[in-house]
């Protein structure tokens, strides 16, 4: 059972689903996103990671066309996001608060979707919610947070978009439901014609399904690329507590951790590490993410109160 089908005119090999260059968004004096240049090929599941207020929601809203950039370009599915039924039909965006009409039932939402979209797989939503034992006829506001999230996710899949933008979609789900949903996304992407960007704090979940990463901190892009390539480009160097100037000159040091006895460096490799005192090991996605958050920790923390979680 899957909600996704091949969409005509999609999935040119090597085509990009998302392309931004110098993308910036300011709200008054607050810069929510600054000079953001990222690219996500079609058919990927892209993790969007960053501390609170890093600009994740802003980026997703710019991609969906719900906000307009202050500067820079954004291309989604080959066009600039715009108010046009054809563009909107190809985008599925689920905002953080899981916006649904609280007094309307899931069935009402299904029927509304059928009236508002050129493609609409109503049966898939009913099947999915019935399987999850979620009543179709009860007002959505009376469902639990997790059930509401399931309704919203099922609805967004019924639209059969080419690009799915999910802002913290699994936060309200229990671990099993989370795993099921992420599996469903992976199936959909495997079936072709779908690209997914999802933001989350749960790196372990993302690691399981995502093959692409955009990492934001302090409104700037820290990392963007294929996860395997990014992991291969970084290494953890462990060695005695000593002067690391030589390494810092030849490699890009992301993070240094010093204890009285040893030094640990997370570096982005420019070439082989020649210092024999240091032992190189692979990094995990979590270590990588935390290192980049740590690199930027002071400004990120300083900005937390002002940047805030964008609306």
């Amino acid at each position: 059972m899957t909600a996704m089908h091949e969409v005509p005119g999609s999935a040119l090999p090597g085509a990009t689903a998302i392309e931004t260059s110098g993308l910036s968004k300011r709200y008054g004096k607050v810069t929510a996103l600054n000079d953001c240049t990222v690219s996500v090929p079609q058919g990927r599941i892209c993790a969007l990671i960053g501390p609170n207020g890093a600009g994740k929601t802003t980026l997703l809203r710019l991609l969906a066309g719900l906000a307009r950039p202050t500067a820079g370009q954004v291309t989604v599915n080959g066009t600039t996001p715009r108010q046009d039924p054809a563009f909107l039909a190809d985008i599925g965006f689920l905002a953080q608060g899981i916006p649904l009409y609280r007094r309307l039932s899931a069935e009402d939402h299904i029927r509304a979707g059928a009236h508002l979209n050129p493609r609409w797989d109503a049966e898939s939503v009913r099947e999915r919610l019935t399987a999850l034992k979620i009543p179709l006829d009860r007002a959505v506001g009376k469902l639990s947070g997790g059930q509401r999230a399931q309704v919203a996710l099922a609805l967004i899949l019924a639209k059969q978009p080419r690009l799915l933008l999910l802002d913290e979609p699994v936060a309200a789900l229990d671990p099993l439901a989370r795993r099921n949903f992420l599996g469903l996304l992976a199936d959909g992407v495997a079936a072709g014609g779908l690209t997914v960007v999802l933001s989350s704090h749960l790196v372990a979940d993302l690691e399981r399904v995502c093959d692409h990463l955009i990492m934001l901190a302090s409104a700037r892009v820290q990392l963007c690329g294929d996860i395997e390539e990014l992991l291969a480009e970084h290494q953890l160097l462990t060695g005695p507590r000593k002067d690391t100037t030589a390494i810092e000159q030849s490699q890009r040091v992301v993070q240094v951790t010093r204890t009285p006895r040893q030094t640990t460096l997370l570096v982005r490799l420019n070439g082989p590490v020649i210092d024999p005192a240091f032992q190189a090991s692979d990094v995990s996605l979590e270590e990588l993410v935390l290192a980049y958050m740590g690199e930027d920790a002071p400004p990120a923390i300083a900005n937390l109160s002002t940047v805030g979680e964008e609306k």
Partner: protein
Amino acid sequence: MTWLVWRQHRVQLYLGAALLAAFAVLIVITGIQVGNQYHAAQAACAAGHGCRQLGGLFLGSHAVGFLIISTLGAPVLVGLFVGAPLVAAEAEAGTTQFAWMQSVTRKRWLTVKIGWMLLAAAIWGGVISALVTWWEGPNNAVQLDAFDPGRFDIMGIVPVAYSLFAVALGIAAGTLLRRVLPAIAVTLAGFIAVRAVVALWLRQHYMSPVTVFYNVTSGFTPPGSYWQLAQGGLGPNGQQLAQPNNTPYIDGVPAIYLPASCRQVSRGAFTPPPSCTQALSHFRAYLTYQPADRYWTFQGIETGIFLFLAAVLIAVAAVTLLRRDA
């Protein structure tokens, strides 16, 4: 989009329709009684059994009369409960992010929603006004007060324009403020302010009023339901007469300006002595008014003003919503 609008607002629609139906039943039943009363009084007058009671006749019950007067407030209700929440409630709950991520542009979303709400407001104002106008027909014929402030405002076509203005004001306030309660407050205050300014100050200037000078002894009453704006007396030298409250009036002239022969008999029905009549003939009076035949012109002008304001407010709401980030 229409289906979603219907689904979102059907409870309001049922409620509004039920209120209108209840009002209609009450008005039709009592209206028939009022009509019968009126025709009976007319027949009595024609048969020579005294027409004086016709002039002072109050038709219908006081309770229904009060309800009729309170329809002054009917138009603002659609502004408060339909207009103000239309965009604000969705912005507040975040459901715009559901609606705008379906394959529907914001422009279409807004156009369809506003279109149906304007239609609903026009029907609301129109039905109420039609019922009130019909019910008040005999009263207007008796009292000749259809043009007076407060009566003019609940009959004819202006209630339709007021309703459209109220709903547009609510939509604009809700779009700008994005919060339901502040939008309701602004709509209420704005509606009352604009209506008051237009009714109390602007309306009398739509056309230059007519002023007629006449001898107080002959008197003067314009035909039909005219709207009296000012009235006063002029003394033998053409001077404006003060109009004190603490003195009796004879033919509209304060008794203090008149000889004692007038004052002695100033109470009750009387025939003034020749000296008093002689004195009165030097006084003149004036009446400034809008003639009854301008009634529909005034209704049209006032309707135009409120339709224009409604259009401006809708434009403000649309431009704000389409320019702003979602």
